[in-house]
């Protein structure tokens, strides 16, 4: 492979990816790598989770978060993260019809 050079972009990206993975080595001066950590707290077991996806990273998160935010709010799929329409802040979405456009109007709620 070392004598071949990809001429299309996708192959170039794949090659760059392989190089990156090979470079990703923790030196002997450090403790053995322990893999990605999933923080304490909320909804780590949903896939995707709120803070992290099922692999412990952010690549699989619902993105941008504003796109589906109001679905989280209905009966509250994410009760510890987003206000729920049933009890806390029923009118949370009142000031912005589409979160993706009006996201600056979204309230932070203290129940």
């Amino acid at each position, binding site marked *: 492979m070392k004598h071949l050079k990809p001429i299309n972009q996708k192959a170039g*990206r*794949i090659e760059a*990816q392989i190089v*990156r*993975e090979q470079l*990703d080595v*923790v*030196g*002997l*001066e*450090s*403790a*053995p790598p*322990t893999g*990605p*950590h*999933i*923080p*304490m*707290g*909320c*909804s*780590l*077991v*949903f896939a995707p989770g*709120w*803070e*992290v996806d099922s692999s412990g*990273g*952010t*690549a699989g*998160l619902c*993105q*941008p*978060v*504003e796109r589906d935010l109001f679905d989280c709010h209905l*009966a*509250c*799929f994410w*009760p*510890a*993260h*987003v*206000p*729920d329409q*049933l*009890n*806390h*802040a*029923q009118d949370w979405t009142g000031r912005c019809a589409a979160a*993706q456009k009006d*996201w*600056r*109007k*979204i*309230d*932070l*709620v*203290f*129940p």
Partner: protein
Amino acid sequence: MTQRVHFASLAIVSALGITVLAASRLEPPVPGMTLANEHGTSSFGVGDEGYPIDNETVIAQCERCHEQDEQGRMSRISFERKTPEGWQTSIRRMVALNNVRLEPAEAREVVRYLSNRQGLAPEELEPGRFEVERRLIDYDYQGDDNVEFTCIQCHSMGRVITQRRTQEEWALLLATHRGLYPLADRQGFRYGGFAGEQGDDDDNRQPMDIAIDHLSEAFPLETPEWSAWSASMRPPRLAGTWALAGFETGKGRVFGTIEIVAGNTPDEFTTSAEYTYAESGESIRSTGQAVTYTGYQWRGRSNRGDDGELREVMMVDREWQGMDGRWFTGAYDEFGIDVELMRTRGEAVLTGVHPRALRAGAGATEVRLYGANLPTDASPTDFDFGLGVKVESVTDVSPSVLTLRAYVEETAMIGGRDLFLAGANLTDAVRIHDGVDRIEVSPDWGMARVGGATNFPKGYQAFDAIGWDNGPDGQANTVDDLNLGRITATWSMEEYTATFDDDDIAYVGELGPDGIFTPAEDGPNLNRKGSRNNVGDVWVVATHAGPEAKANNPLRARAHLIVTVPLYLKFDPWQSGFMPGRLVP
């Protein structure tokens, strides 16, 4: 409406507005404390659980919904015990959802009464301290994996293990969850299926039934710990001068003193503190107020002037000679000092030496010794650091810090050294090493949250580079390794490769020269593919290149940083006005 909720949020810092009175006076009663012994748990037989309630405010405010029986027990309330934060959360929910109207003074009295009469013993709180001290840790509940799985889908296990309830009360708690959050039924409690569909074939209970059975067994209302503690419980007498030692990630060690003055009631105190960050020399003065709950739980807030407020959560030890806990701030409580207080009585107290790590053969080195009531007339020979470390001169003196010129010989053996001075001692005061073998980034993972564009605050993450000497055996990661504390490092970020063309590093935010990560703004980023938020995973890399580094110079270590989305709901804000936002309803 907003005002009422605001009142409740002040409940656990009930010392606001206190004026300090003269020492000699009749002390007003502490709600829930004076009669504790008369109604100790031991007076109730098995099957007759539940605590009678005799506080007029609690009865007046709660009896509209919580009926009181002939034994004085009120429905639901009498059958649970929890932390002051737990009781405050209940009151907030009653105000927000059940139309309770409380004055601030009433809310404080209810929290104090219930926390004192139906609180947790120190041994019971200990495993869940991270919850009240607001620490972001990897907590692994050892009791039952299935129950942990059921609970942490929505919230920290810390909320669960800081409560005690009867079996019926645990069942009602889950019923309340199902009522308030119907989707939780499918997410965690029943999975929307029939019993026995999930997991073990021999156990056909639903996850919520498993949880109720486990929790009522592991965290029952009546325990020997609580019986013993509540019998001996009283407001701790904490007035006096205390030496302070602490550590803050991103800033290093802190030393100082705190003066605690008795307040209007035996469980209230006012404080004035003075402390210094040993590395930077930054000096802080603060004044504050605090209340103690359940005879040992310190809850205070201190004002640092331009630097803002800190919330103080500490546990007082059983002998009233020490306290420890965390003083914190930040929108997600992410900045904080791990604090330890030691009572002083006029004798010398040693709290720390900076720098703590001294290299064998370093020769003459200036070190500062922190403490309280330090002997200002001490001569160099009074300082005993053991063989190989001599104090040549005392160059500057004050009762709280002595500046010394120490000489570390080439032949000094590596390891921790105790210091003895004027009848006082400090264990492991300095660590003699022969060079830095490796470094690590602490914490080894972190989490920040984007924010700052409008209503959502940024969640920061601080990191330290910690130096290590491999110890006498020369092997890394063995018991004899010496932690050399914070070490200078240059900070950078590297991509944590998770996808093709991963480009998180360009968007997530900035890592400062002090190791403190500041996330980028929230909201869709139109310049990013798919208008993604500025979220991502990166490696935080510390590089140490110095004369003390042994092999592999420069030394390098890294930690995994997750930069993620905000929370749109905060159940436990303690700083009113800290962030923009809206109180419910």
